[in-house]
């Protein structure tokens, strides 16, 4: 995307809000009011896109969070005469605290339990607000004074529209930057595939907490903006039903883009004004609308509009893979043969005496293996031999009962999976774990690591200011894609790729951080025969050119034998044979392991 277009795309949602504001200013007071309130709902919708759409967390607490923002700013103004802008800032703070509080249990639960936990927060908050009568006016409500800032007292509908419009545009801008930037992408990755996310340094709990906090800050901000506009603040307005209908904003609009929040929030708030003649049926209508959207258009109206536009332009509805992926590079490298093992090379990865029990099952029994610097080592064995357990112990997804796993002298057993990438260890997955919603390029960019929440937020801001990543980082990612022959598909959503190409993408994502070791978990499982050879050539080339060591777990022995310089064979949890592929395969013990001892007699 060209520089001005990219900047425009980032600014567009905020500009739409500003545009609506300006368009509303010459209108009558009633449309001005409705636009102002709809803009507040847009902020709510956009905030919930972060939590509901990207993090895929259900919240039934949006109403209470909005109440927290509204009461914070209003009560400060009423009781302490705090200026409006400072009240707003305080609302951001209390919103953040509320989000953090919800996240404490919120990161532990999914689905119905999360719905209930947030409902608890919602109900308790509203009860507390209601019972703190002297402070909040209780259930009867309290008058909110007209806000004033820098000597300007906001009274008229036009003033309010201007104030709400400008501040909301700012909020939408911030949310757009986060949603479209690295933060949003990483959050989608975390929600889409926790295991893969953790493997590339994305801490799922940290991201989910951030999602709760950011969306709560947004919703609380919206609450503080709206409070003086509606004049009367009462707990009932922020009850469970309000929460449920706010949850509908991102769902109906479209959960996966900021536009969905805009469309859902604004649309669902404005629609009742047009449905006034049939107001009796409005709640039934909205509830049915959500069910219909969930069942038939999970992408919401944004997706519907997008498809409509594509259909009008004559494009096919879904994203399609380009007919010929660029595999020429890989084919050219097919002649590459394994590097000779460097003599006396120091071992890069050392596994010693690793034990793991599952109940009575001794899944891994004093297993050992080494991978030399720049070497390719294979781990094979029949089903149930313990390969996957050992692999998971090395990659950090399974704890060992005993033993030692050291990478270049550093013990790995205490490290969380997400910390391995810093040491220079990455991996691929048996069941391809690409982040399907993200483009191939974004998948690879995540593979660069440095995916801490704060770093990602900072990076999101940088991207907005100076383009998507620095030229260097982008170049690295493109180079990695090019290395696996996917450069032409950089912009394609990863979920739309063929399995073979998804495996390539995983390899690109694994090499972009310049690791010293890649753990390959069944890299050709399910891949068509023709592509297996290409993948082997690709891996050999990467090993040769980038000197990345590899540990491969694989069932396809012909493939492993032609890829690796050394093999370990596992049976019943223990390493039963080691050596060069040819030697190992010839061993009677290995054959017996695979074809069985004569137990039938």
């Amino acid at each position: 995307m060209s520089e001005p277009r990219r900047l425009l795309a980032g600014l567009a949602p905020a500009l739409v809000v500003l545009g609506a504001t300006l368009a509303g200013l010459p209108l009558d007071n009633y449309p001005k009011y409705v636009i102002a309130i709809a803009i507040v709902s847009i902020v709510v919708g956009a905030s919930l896109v972060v939590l509901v759409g990207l993090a895929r967390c259900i919240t039934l607490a949006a109403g209470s969070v909005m109440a927290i923002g509204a009461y914070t700013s209003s009560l400060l103004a009423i009781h302490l005469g705090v200026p409006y802008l400072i009240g707003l800032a305080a609302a951001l703070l209390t919103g953040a605290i509320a989000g953090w509080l919800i996240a404490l249990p919120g990161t532990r639960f999914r689905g119905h339990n999360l719905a209930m936990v947030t409902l608890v927060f919602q109900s308790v908050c509203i009860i507390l607000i209601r019972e703190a009568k002297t402070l909040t006016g209780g259930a009867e409500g309290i008058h909110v004074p007209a806000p004033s800032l820098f000597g300007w007292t906001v009274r008229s509908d036009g003033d309010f529209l201007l104030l709400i419009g400008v501040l909301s545009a700012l909020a939408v801008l911030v949310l757009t930057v986060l949603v479209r930037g690295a933060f949003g992408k990483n959050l989608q990755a975390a929600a889409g595939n926790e295991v893969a996310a953790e493997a590339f340094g994305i801490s799922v709990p940290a991201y989910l907490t951030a999602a709760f906090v950011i969306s709560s800050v947004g919703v609380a901000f919206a609450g503080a903006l709206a409070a003086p506009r509606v004049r009367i603040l009462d707990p009932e307005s922020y009850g469970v039903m309000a929460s449920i209908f706010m949850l509908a904003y991102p769902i109906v609009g479209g959960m996966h883009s900021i536009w969905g929040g805009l469309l859902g929030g604004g649309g669902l708030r404005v629609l009742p004004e047009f449905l006034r003649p049939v107001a009796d049926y409005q709640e039934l209508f909205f509830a049915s609308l959500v069910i219909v959207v969930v069942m038939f258009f999970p992408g919401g109206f944004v997706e519907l509009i997008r498809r409509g536009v594509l259909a009008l332009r004559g494009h096919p509805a879904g994203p399609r893979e380009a007919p010929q992926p660029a595999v020429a590079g890989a084919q050219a490298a097919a002649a590459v043969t394994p590097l000779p093992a460097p003599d006396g090379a120091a071992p890069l990865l050392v596994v010693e005496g690793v034990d793991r029990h599952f109940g009575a099952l001794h899944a891994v029994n004093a297993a050992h293996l080494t991978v030399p610097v720049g070497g390719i080592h294979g781990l094979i064995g029949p089903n149930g031999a313990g390969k996957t357990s050992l692999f998971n112990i090395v990659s950090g997804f399974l704890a060992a009962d005993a033993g030692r796993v050291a990478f270049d002298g550093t013990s790995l057993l205490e490290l969380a999976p997400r910390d391995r990438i810093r040491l220079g260890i990455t991996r691929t997955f048996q069941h391809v774990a690409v982040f399907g919603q993200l483009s191939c390029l974004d998948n690879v960019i995540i593979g660069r690591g440095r995916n801490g929440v704060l770093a990602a937020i900072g990076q999101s801001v940088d991207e907005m200011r100076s383009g998507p990543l620095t030229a260097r980082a982008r170049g690295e990612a493109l180079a990695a894609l090019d290395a696996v022959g996917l450069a032409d598909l950089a912009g394609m959503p990863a979920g739309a790729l063929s399995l073979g190409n998804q495996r390539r993408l995983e390899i690109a994502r694994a090499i972009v951080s310049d690791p010293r070791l890649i753990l390959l978990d069944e890299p050709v499982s399910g891949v068509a025969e023709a592509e297996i050879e290409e993948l082997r050539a690709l891996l050999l080339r990467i090993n040769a050119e980038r000197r990345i060591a590899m540990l491969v777990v694989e069932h396809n022995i012909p493939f492993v034998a032609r890829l690796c310089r050394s093999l370990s064979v596992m049976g019943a949890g223990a390493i039963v044979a080691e050596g060069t592929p040819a030697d190992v395969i010839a061993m009677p013990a290995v054959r017996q392991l695979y074809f069985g001892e004569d137990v039938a007699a």
Partner: protein
Amino acid sequence: MRRGPLHRIALALAAAALASTVAPSAMAQEAGVSDTEITIGAIGALTGPIAFIGTPGRDGMTLAIDEINAKGGVCGRKLKLNFEHASTPAESLAAVKKLVEQDKVFALVLASGSTGAAAAADYVRQVGVPTYNLYGSTPIIREPFSKNVFHGAIVPVEVAAPGLIGLFYDDGHKPQKIGVLAGTYAFPQATLKAVEAHLKSKKIDYALEQFDQSARDFTSQLVSFGRQKVDSVLILGSFSEAGFAIKQARELGMANIRWVLDGSAVSRAIVPIIGNADGIRGYFNNPAFPGQNDTVREFEARLKKQLGSMPQGRPNNYDMIAYGSTYVIADAITGTGCQLTRDKFLASWSSLKNAGPKTMGGLDVSFPESFTETDHQGNYRLGAAVVKNGEWQVYRVIERP
């Protein structure tokens, strides 16, 4: 500077005279008034938990307007009702702005709950539309006084509270200890504030227990009353809450309690909940209870005809108030001498004496209402009601307690 009543009347007269001379007949007609129609706007909740207030509001008003129009309308024009759904403050503001600025209604009726009405009232004070608050009793709607906002059948909480407590002493009853059972939501809390103030000022000992909206289990509250030897209980809440509380008290063996209910709970629908509800008291905002006399029975028949079928518990307070109040508005319009300007209308409204359905041939189901320049509370009367043989009856009228 203190202004005496004479001074005010003189001012009003002067203003009226000025208005009649300055406004020539050729001048554009007032908002909401055409040659054939006068548009009245109203808001109330048609969906959600307080739809049971808004829907009767709409139905009662529609019945009255249909009757008035059948007789030729007022000032040669038909009345037209624009009723908009709104329940929260935000929705109420949107609805009144739409009615005032887009539909340009001549007068506005608030048939909504307290908080919605409060947000709307705040706005109409600014724009000056003649506004009738039907159901809001709390100070947050009524204060500050504004010359274009009127209140009808529902008396302010400070007035209702002594009336309510007075019901404990009817028929020579001497309460030993009063228990107050109040809902934690908006309007019971407003009444509670006034009731507590009154009880304290009279140095009456009382026990307070509360319950959440739509509560169905009152055992613990009642047990606490039993422990404190409460023999008289005031319930502030809806008829359903009051009904189940009384039912449970009987089940707990709490006999011989004098029950007094807030006006909002005085409904026919409470009787089927309790079964034998005889002896339960409460105040009613109208002079007779549905079914009590021929006039009210006729009202019920007409409403049923209009609705097709009568939902359980209807007609209720809200149907009757909406019906009566619509006639009050019609009276006020007639009182302008058909010079349909807002100022004339406000002046006419402020000088209504004993207005209501009767003056225009409607059914006399509501107290007559009177207003002055300085007092926009149309009614101070409360009907003291009691259940006899399974039917509510208003047995005396409490005059300005």
